[in-house]
């Protein structure tokens, strides 16, 4: 066991895979010489050299296009899009090309690309550098979507994503970068499509992702003080989605809450709420409740940003109100 920061876990996980597979390459803006603007790729240039770890111009379409073309001709690629908001400038490659290539060609094409990107709020960067856009990718058939909340998950899910022959969008949360956690020694490999019950409980299921997981856990602690036993699920991957974990938990607790950092409309929690409302309807003892950032662009000022993103307080309050 070694304690690593979430930030360092990224380079650690990539290094593990680049050692294993000498074909694996990566590209992105400022990832080589500078070790990434979030310092998530520090040391990789030194270990693997500039053929395998490569700085690019500000050309997100060219970056992801190159990743896709290389991947489909036998070279797996990790591509970095610096902030997830910038997926919008290369969304055609993400949504219309990578995702659809295998299906459109009747199964001829394989696109083993991992698109890593810094996601989420809490850094006072304002509306164009703070979005939680997992749903932008979840809604596109053909993309796998991963969003770890701990350093160990970063390493294990990165390995799983890299080894997956399908395109994966891997969301690294900016506000988790400095958090620390233990990562097992030796090769770490996890599996996509497996949620984790990070706290067991009986009265309510709280489904969370990434930065919202520690808040959901804190909220569960506080709810416990009030005699409410909340089960917390860290989804970890949105596609494939571990519906068994969700439905199993709801069967036990009969109540479900989602905690979403995204602005409300069509967030991942909407999908989960709809699945629960369809498939676990008869298990439910009360409404499915979504706790989300309101449907607004994110403000820059600390006071406002903190108000916008679901806080531990808001989770506690909402769960309590709804269980009364």
């Amino acid at each position, binding site marked *: 066991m070694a304690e690593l920061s979430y930030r360092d876990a990224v380079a650690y996980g990539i290094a593990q895979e680049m050692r294993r597979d000498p074909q694996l390459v990566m590209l992105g803006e400022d990832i080589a010489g500078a070790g990434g603007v979030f310092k998530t790729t520090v040391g990789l240039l030194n270990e693997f050299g500039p053929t395998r770890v490569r700085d690019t111009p500000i050309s997100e379409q060219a970056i992801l296009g190159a990743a896709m*073309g290389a991947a489909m001709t036998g070279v797996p690629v990790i591509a970095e899009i610096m902030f997830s908001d910038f997926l919008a400038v290369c969304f055609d490659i993400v949504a219309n090309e990578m995702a659809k290539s295998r299906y459109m060609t009747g199964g001829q094409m394989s696109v083993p690309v991992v698109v890593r990107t810094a996601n989420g709020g809490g850094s006072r960067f304002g509306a164009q550098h703070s979005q939680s856009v997992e749903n932008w990718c979840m809604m596109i058939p053909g993309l796998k979507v991963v969003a770890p909340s701990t350093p160990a998950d970063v390493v294990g899910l990165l390995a799983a994503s890299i080894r997956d022959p399908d395109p994966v969008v891997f969301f690294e949360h900016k506000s988790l970068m400095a958090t620390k956690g233990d990562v097992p020694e030796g090769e770490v490999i996890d599996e996509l499509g497996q949620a984790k019950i990070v706290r067991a409980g009986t009265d309510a299921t709280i489904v969370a992702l990434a930065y919202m997981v520690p808040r959901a856990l804190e909220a569960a602690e506080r709810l416990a003080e009030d005699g409410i036993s909340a089960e917390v699920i860290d989804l970890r991957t949105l596609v494939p989605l571990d519906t068994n974990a969700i439905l199993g938990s709801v069967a036990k607790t009969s109540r479900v809450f989602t905690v979403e950092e995204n602005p409300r409309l069509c967030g991942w929690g909407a999908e989960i709420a709809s699945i629960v409302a369809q498939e676990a309807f008869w298990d439910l003892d009360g409404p499915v409740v979504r706790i989300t950032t309101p449907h607004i662009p994110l403000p820059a000022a600390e006071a406002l940003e903190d108000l916008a993103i679901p806080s531990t307080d808001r989770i506690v309050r909402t769960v309590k109100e709804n269980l009364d």
Partner: protein
Amino acid sequence: MNTEMFDPELMDYANRDPRLPSPVDEGNADLGIDLEQRLDLYERQQVLRQFEKRAYDMFLQNLVKGTSHLSLGMEAVSAGFGAAMRQDDYTFATYRGHAHTLSRGVDLGPVMAELLGRENGLLKGKGGSMHLTSVEHGMMGSYAIIGAHLTIANGAAWSAQIRGTDQVTVCFFGDGTTNIGAFHEALNFAAIWKLPIVFVCENNLYMEYTPIDLITAVPNPAADRAAAYGLPRIIVDGNDADAVYMTALDVIAKARSGGGPSLVEAVTYREQGHSRADPGKYRPKEEVEAWKGRDPIPMYHQRLLGLGVSEGDLAAIQQDVARRVDEATEFAKAGAPPGTEHLMTDVWSDGGAAWRN
């Protein structure tokens, strides 16, 4: 509102001055291409022409659903490049990709069947006319949203560079495509990484229904931008298979030997509308007529006659191609519509479409 700033020709494109082809460069008869190669170029053009004419008949019989974009009149470009490429090279094309697919040696039958949306189609009917792909032939896809495939083609070239093979990637696109952002990103990227790639702009003078010169800041949409990427200016007569072939040999050799990318502008013309739905009325009649007079195939036919090939030999090639096109048509028509089991396959590498457990 200041309307004076507009040219009246903006009101009716068909009444603009026509953009006429340059006269045939008969010097090209002396390019030193051997006759066998020339007969191959002739045959390639015949295949593309006859296949697409048949495809057009299929539309008229309502056997092709959806849309479809023909290269009639533009065959010399893909024939010339197809002949100059090595078997393990990579091709990337647009929705106007029938010709480029066939040029890589893909069987005619599955291509026709794909147009007809049949299960024996190249893509099991799942992709359609705009997405022809045959990985085993190095035909790495036809892409229907403008721009993206230039960047994807870079990736294939980068991969060859990384793997240390000397495969070359050839990426075809239209004049209209030179105005989208991805064109710029792709060209700069290829240049700085010295990728083994050839970008081929098939300048057929129109972006769909709009004359390219009205919407482009330079007269030659590709060639006049080459310098912005540190590349030489290359224009070729896209209706002359020999000229295209010689240029293709050059730029492919350059790429193969580590000399980096090229950008080639092949000037040509499509004889029909942009796509199935388009009668093409926005073009001056005189212009269409003039370019029909420069149809690459009769021109090449004449050249071969001039070089001593007999009408009989050429007729034999034509007839052989006609037979292959007939067979392909039969193959396609005999195909069943794709079975329902195909709906939920090929989303993921495990063959399925499950997004949940």
